[in-house]
């Protein structure tokens, strides 16, 4: 299938295209006589040249002395829009960390506190029964905060939805969240000499190509 990673059926919210992909796979059972690989020749309908994407919110520099304060201020701009998306979709993928849907501010606070303290051992105490222990919890705190941002952008006015690369460019070039992720990655890097597993955690937190001038893993 000629589709980007993360969308094996090609296009979100395009039921007809998805059915076409499923049919193409299932039909192989009646057209093949032995195991094999057959290419799907059609690109997803939303692939192609697109105009540049920009976040519609003007993110003025978030004030505060700590990452937790600055990230909290930034995330508060997105929470109402994320709530709008949840209402529209009737669901959310927020909660990978173990947090409930009404604990978004606590998750933001927890991620910011890790960036402030560099504590890679003790789970942030914000009243959440985390689904993971540290340091793997960090990966899912990042995922949950990114989900808030992604789901917020899905409801904001704009000419088109951002791509995966658009989002990574924006997060790592323009947001406090990007600063927080890189700061935590630096802590993981510094501690990896004694705990090599932390290099893998860094690779789960920072997409490849986004960690300074080196591999994320």
């Amino acid at each position, binding site marked *: 299938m000629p589709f980007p990673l993360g969308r094996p059926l*090609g296009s*979100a919210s395009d039921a007809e295209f998805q059915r076409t992909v*499923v*049919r193409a796979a299932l039909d192989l*059972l009646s057209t093949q006589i032995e195991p094999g690989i057959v290419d799907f020749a059609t690109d997803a309908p939303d692939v192609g040249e697109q105009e540049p994407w920009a976040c519609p919110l003007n993110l003025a520099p978030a004030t505060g002395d700590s990452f937790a304060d600055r990230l909290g201020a930034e995330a508060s701009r997105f929470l109402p829009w994320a709530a709008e998306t949840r209402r529209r979709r009737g669901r959310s993928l927020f909660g990978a960390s173990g947090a409930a849907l009404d604990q978004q501010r606590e998750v933001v606070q927890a991620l910011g506190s890790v960036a402030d303290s560099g504590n890679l051992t003790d789970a942030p105490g914000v009243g959440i029964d985390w689904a993971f222990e540290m340091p793997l919890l960090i990966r899912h705190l990042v995922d949950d905060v990114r*989900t808030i941002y992604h789901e917020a952008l899905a409801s904001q006015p704009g000419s088109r939805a951002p791509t*995966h690369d658009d989002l990574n460019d924006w997060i790592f070039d323009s947001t406090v969240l990007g600063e927080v992720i890189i700061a935590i990655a630096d802590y993981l890097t510094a501690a990896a000499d004694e705990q090599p597993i932390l290099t893998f955690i860094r690779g789960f937190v920072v997409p490849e190509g986004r960690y300074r001038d080196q591999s994320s893993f």
Partner: protein
Amino acid sequence: MRADNMARVAPGPWITPKPLAESTVAIVSTAGMHRRGDPPFVAGDLSYRIIPGTSDFSDLVMTHVSANFDRTAVQDDPNVAFPLDRLRELHDAGEIGGVSNWHYSFMGAMPNPSLFEEAGTEVGRLLAADGVDVALLVPI
């Protein structure tokens, strides 16, 4: 390059299934999705989670560890990686015989896929016992 270094898994024997219109279909996904209250996937996880055929997407989360694939599509429409609604529609249209009572979710990101053999064999037995004729494997 990492894919080139992965262990090769030989194809299994070819089994001609029943006509699709008479076949029950199950999804086997590697997207790391599971019900909100289920144990999350952890790095190197070789286990699987069961997802009932009656599931509503509002009850599912994704704890796949990789940071290197686009999650916005699944956030927008989980069918893009777990096409449960599409199977229901194909069943309603008479194109497939049925949708399985149970579907299965693994987490990919495993350099040596042969490590999944034990769990995969177990899922195969469960699918057969449930009367499933076709497993739709959906990697992410």
